[in-house]
């Protein structure tokens, strides 16, 4: 074990796998000598060279499409979108080419698409989005979203060994704020949910940065009352873990940092309503960012993103229901 930031854990996961699997290579805008806009690939260029840490033209569609081709040829590309928002420029290659390839042709596309997501730092409408629901709605893509340094490495290394296209959502706000113990060497985490705080009276379902907001909210109640379930993987969605927790606590609050409509949390809510209705002692509640672009001014941004206070308030209401 060594102590790392969430960002260092991502770099460590890449480096560890690149050392033991020569098929793995990184490509993206400014990922080479510069080390990436957030320094997620820092040091890799020096160790692995220009062919395995490739600076590309500013061409998101080509970055994703060329990754598909390299994957078909037997390599294991790791493509970086400089910001997850920019994946819109390469969306067609992702959903129409990568996502449908195995179903249509039997050819697998083992590639990882790293997507720095999320707001909270005055990034404005083009550098703050949480686009995970786009991918959830496109068949053939796996979608994972770690909340801790250990999971960042473990889910990334599992993604690198998955034979499918995996959208790896790394939250920018966690890059340097989250620090923790990370196993050395190969570390694999399954694409499954995990209970990060056990409780008896209410389940808060969250993923990514919202796990930490949910934990902060849970801290405002007596220990043992509020459970926090970290989804970690959105596709596949760990339905049994969600249902098991909700059946135990009988109440559920679902938190998304993404825009509310059709967010990952909406799928969780539908699942609970469909398969755990008779176990519920209260309404299924959701907290998410309203359906607006993420505004720039810190005051405006703070007014739309879910906060521990808002989560705690909703939790209080549910507990009292």
């Amino acid at each position, binding site marked *: 074990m060594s102590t790392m930031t969430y960002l260092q854990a991502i770099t460590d996961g890449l480096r560890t796998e690149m050392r033991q699997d020569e098929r793995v290579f990184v490509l993206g805008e400014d990922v080479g000598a510069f080390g990436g806009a957030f320094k997620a690939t820092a040091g890799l260029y020096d160790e692995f060279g220009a062919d395995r840490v490739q600076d590309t033209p500013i061409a998101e569609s080509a970055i994703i499409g060329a990754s598909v081709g390299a994957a078909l040829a037997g390599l294991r590309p790791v493509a970086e979108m400089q910001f997850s928002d920019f994946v819109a420029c390469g969306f067609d290659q992702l959903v129409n080419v990568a996502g*449908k390839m195995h*179903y249509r042709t039997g050819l697998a596309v083992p590639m990882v698409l790293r997507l720095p997501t999320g707001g909270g730092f005055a990034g404005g409408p083009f550098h703050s989005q949480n686009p995970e629901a786009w991918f959830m709605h496109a*068949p053939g893509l796996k979608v994972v979203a770690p909340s801790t340094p250990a999971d960042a490495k473990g889910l990334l290394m599992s993604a690198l060994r998955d034979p499918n296209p995996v959208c790896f959502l790394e939250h920018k706000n966690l890059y340097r704020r989250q620090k923790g113990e990370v196993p050395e060497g190969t570390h694999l985490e399954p694409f499954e949910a995990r209970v990060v705080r056990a409780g008896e009276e209410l389940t808060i379902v969250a993923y990514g940065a919202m796990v930490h907001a949910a934990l902060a909210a849970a801290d405002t109640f007596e220990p043992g009352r509020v459970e926090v379930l970290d989804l970690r993987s959105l596709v596949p969605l760990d339905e049994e873990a969600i249902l098991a927790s909700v059946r135990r606590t009988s109440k559920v609050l679902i938190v998304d940092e993404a825009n509310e409509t059709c967010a990952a949390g909406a799928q969780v809510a539908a699942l609970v309503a469909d398969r755990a209705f008779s176990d519920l002692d209260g309404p299924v509640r959701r907290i998410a960012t309203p359906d607006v672009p993420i505004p720039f001014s810190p005051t405006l941004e703070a007014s739309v993103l879910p906060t521990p206070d808002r989560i705690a308030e909703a939790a209080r209401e549910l507990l009292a229901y």
Partner: protein
Amino acid sequence: MATLTRAESPTPAAGPRPKAGAPDAAAPDAEAAASDPALTPDDRLALYRFLVQMRAIEERGVALYKQGKVPGSFYDGRGQEAISVGATFALGPDDVVCSPLIRDLGAHLVRGTDVTEILRHYMGRQNALSHGREGNVHFGDRARGVVGMVSMLPDMMVVAVGLAMAFRMRGERRVALSFFGDGATSRGDWHEAMNWAGVRKEPVVFVCENNGLAYSTPSDRQFVVGPAERAAGYGVASTTVDGNDVEAVHAAVHAARLRALAGDGPTLVEARTMRMHGHGAHDDQRYVDPELLASWTPKDPLTRYDARLTEQGVDTAAVRERVAAELEQAVTVALTAPLPDPAVATSDVFCAGEPATLGRGDAPWSFHSPEAAA
């Protein structure tokens, strides 16, 4: 034979803008057909056979569509057969086609994909190519190094660049071949593929089938500067050939392939042709000037090649008869295939095991022999 225009050569000025419905080249002169010295008599016979086979399968496919046995619509490449056949014929077994488009059935035939499977695929029956999950000419054959197309053009050009990149990174002597139409050159992925291939010198061959029409929209409503001229702007070599001359297409792609293998980078081969049928079986293309179509009829790639081989003493009628008999047999077998099990609709969205690799295609042509290489 076509000659390569080096990317650094001065760009030829754009010619006069074409009339609506017309390709930006006049119909080629049937008398001026090129002869590719790399081809042996056996190669020529094979080329002819593939042209005949593509025409026959697609004529039969239209009939099956009209009989209600092919769901959806049916897309053919009548008049353009020489391009996919001639281009794919230039490949080695380890090269990858990514991808044949809806006018490129010939590419699948040259690579050796089973005709009965293709017919089952057309009819949405149980088949090994697509399992009924796909239709039309949207299929690949991974065992033969052919990646199936998608409908968004020219997406697969970008994927071909990625394949070529992998070949180069591993030091393999392989190229990727990608087909696209004139209409596809309007989209951003065309630009991204050309730019990336040019800047990285990827071993990829781009074959542009310029039939002057993107569905119903003529070239002069799509772009001012033709595809081959634009290639120079990306550092991509280009050449323009008579797309209705199978040997000319072959020669150009053969040269482009050798150029890619030598590490000299990508080439765009612009094959000028005419789409003699509508976009699909549902389209009577009444928007195309009948006189223009009539002017292309004598340039039909099949009848032209037939005349040349007949002159060389080949019994072309025997080839046609054999192809027709084999096709009828394949249709009979295909029609007995059951429809897919509905469970197939919801399986295999994800790969659960080790990824299958791309296999080797048929390429037994004489010029790939060690003697020819020497």
